[in-house]
């Protein structure tokens, strides 16, 4: 009987520890919900500045239209002049790229980069972390003045942009402060920082992002949001016809 006592204590200690582990799946769901507009439409202007060593800064300004309830978005390039009117449109499962010069559409995807920056189409869209990833490891830590959970996520499908992620999530509120994106071979590809958020009703959206390319030293992209609104958008915005018409 004496032998069982330490084992019993160990068992209960382990159980206690396990029960102290937060529900990370619920945390991911909360993150997804905080960044998703549900029934509301959302639009804003993003300024994307890509810095590459030895090259001229590349600047893109784009208006983003989102309708999360139907998984639709449109990114319409406003500047520079040579790309004005180009657009990325998500209709159902498809993402289309439109070039007004040739008046042609072409298949694109959420995984593709926006122009020549390190930002991907998926960076500006709503997230579905809970649906696409499983938490395979976690630890506690600090990031700046915030106490954070550091979660390691593994993809459940191959439709995601990166098969493995590490997220730094605030402990007091389910907000992502930093992410690391890994390739299938476990190589760190990008690190993203989200130092500023805006509150839109009950929703929280990053208003500033910094994406650091970990493969090409010195390459960074900053995305800044402005002119956000939740005004209702006409249905026509999320159609190919709109992209063609807005360019006339």
């Amino acid at each position, binding site marked *: 009987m004496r032998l069982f006592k330490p084992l019993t204590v160990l068992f209960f200690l382990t159980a206690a520890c396990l029960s102290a582990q937060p529900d990370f799946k619920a945390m991911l769901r909360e993150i997804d919900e905080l960044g998703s507009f549900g029934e509301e439409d959302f639009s804003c*202007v993003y300024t994307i500045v890509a810095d590459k060593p030895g090259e001229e800064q590349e*600047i893109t300004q784009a208006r983003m239209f989102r309708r999360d309830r139907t998984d639709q978005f449109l990114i319409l*390039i406003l500047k520079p002049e040579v790309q004005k*009117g*180009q657009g990325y449109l998500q209709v159902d499962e*498809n993402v289309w790229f439109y070039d007004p010069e040739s008046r042609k559409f072409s298949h694109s995807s959420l995984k593709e980069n926006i122009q020549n920056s390190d930002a991907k189409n998926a960076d500006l869209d709503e997230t579905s972390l809970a649906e696409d990833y499983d938490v395979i490891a976690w630890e506690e830590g600090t990031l700046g003045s915030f106490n954070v959970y550091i979660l390691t996520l593994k993809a459940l499908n191959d439709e995601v942009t990166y098969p493995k992620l590490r997220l730094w999530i605030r402990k007091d509120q389910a907000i992502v402060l930093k992410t690391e994106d890994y390739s299938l071979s476990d190589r760190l590809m990008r690190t993203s920082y989200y130092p*500023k958020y*805006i509150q839109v009703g009950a929703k929280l959206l990053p208003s500033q992002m*910094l994406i650091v390319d970990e493969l090409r030293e010195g390459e960074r992209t900053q995305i800044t949001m402005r002119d956000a609104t939740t005004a209702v958008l006409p249905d026509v*915005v999320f159609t190919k016809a709109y992209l063609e018409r807005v360019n006339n």
Partner: protein
Amino acid sequence: MPVVLRIAFRNLKQHRSKTLIIGIIIAVGVLILVVGNSLMDTAALGIERAFIGNYTGHVFISPLAEGEVSLFGVQSVGGIEETPSLPEFSALWDYLESRPQVKGITPQITGFAAIRSEAREDTEVMRATVLFGIRPEEYRGLFDNLVMVEGEALIPGEPGILLSQGAVEYLEEEMEIDISPGDSLLLNGFGTSGFKIREVYLSGIFRFKQDNEIADLISYVDASTLRALKGMNLGGTAEVELTPEETGLLSAEPEDLDTLFSDEGLFVQEDFSWSEEGGDIFSILDTPEEEEPETEIVSLPPLEPEEGSWEYILIKLKRPSSARRFIRSVNTWIDEQGIAAQAGGWKAAAGPFSKSADAVRVVFNVAVIMVVIVAVIIVMNTLVISVVERTGEIGTMRALGGQRSFIRKLFSMEIMAITLVFGLLGIGVGVLALVIIRLIGFEAGNAFVEILFAGKVLKPVIEPLSLAAVLGGVIFFGILANLYPLRLALRVPPVKAMQTE
């Protein structure tokens, strides 16, 4: 017939079995040399055909860049970057065209694109391709490398694309459609001004006369279409005015990035600019009139059509062997003119693709050379032994009054006769072996071997000059192999030499 020659033949006849053994060894050595030389010549020809004849030329002129510049772009840490336009194109062109060593010259632009078909816009299937933007007539004059399988070659001044047979087969299979000349294709490209889509008509389907590692990756397109796809001759992107907030994060030091989160109070942005609701969503691309005069647009001046429109100049020389000297002289001229360009050879032009093929060729040549060295050593060794064995005979000849020079001449005659007869026999058998190899037609399993084989099937080249060199070499080395042991044997006093068994 001189006495020496008569005695030499008599000696060879007398030592028939020994003559035969030495002769066979020489013949086998020559055979190995002939076949080995031929295979090396074939590999050299393969490289020449695969790269120089197909798309690099002997010399290529490119702009200066931070990384190594090849026909496929600028090699950088992160991959291949776009090549800047060739500066002072007209001056370079005029200078190169006037050089007497130049046989032909053509300009080129290179781009990358994904080919899709409008007929199947619902599919994500695409084919990545390297686009060579060319001046069709000049290019054809320089590189007579294509066989049109279907359709027509590019017509000067008209837009169009030539796809390889492999690319068309891939698209047909994956998209489940038929592709034929005249069909419209979409090129999705990326250049200095971002993503572009261009519609282009398929002029023709080709295959390379000499296959190469990247044959199916290359497509030929008219230069205007490629320029538009790459956004060449368009202004830069510096026309957008930025606020400090929009670039603030970019200047943070890498080690300080985590401190972006040090001020909790600033985390949720209060000073955010919200949009006024409403507005016409159909006029959001219109520039408000009052904005224009206030913003100073800093954009690149448009480039002169000829000045900035090409990235490379490819040159073929009348005498390929003079390529190095020519490159040196062009680089000196470029330096004197202060043009930010450079001249390089075909290896520089082929960039990463030449390195692997060249490495395989070097390994192959080393293997052949080693076999040849072993054969030469065996032949020389046999000759040395055969002379040493005849020390007694040499002593007898000297005792009978034979002069040293006479004996030297005699032995040289003997070895010349053996090497000539059996060398010719070896060459004959070697050529026969090469002809048989040609007739059998060994097939190359992959693109690397294809380069070594100078084609899909091994057809070894037989160079008469190379055969003559082999024969001359064997005779020379034969005499050389004879001289040293003969010198030793002649030093031995005749009486002592005669006692040698």
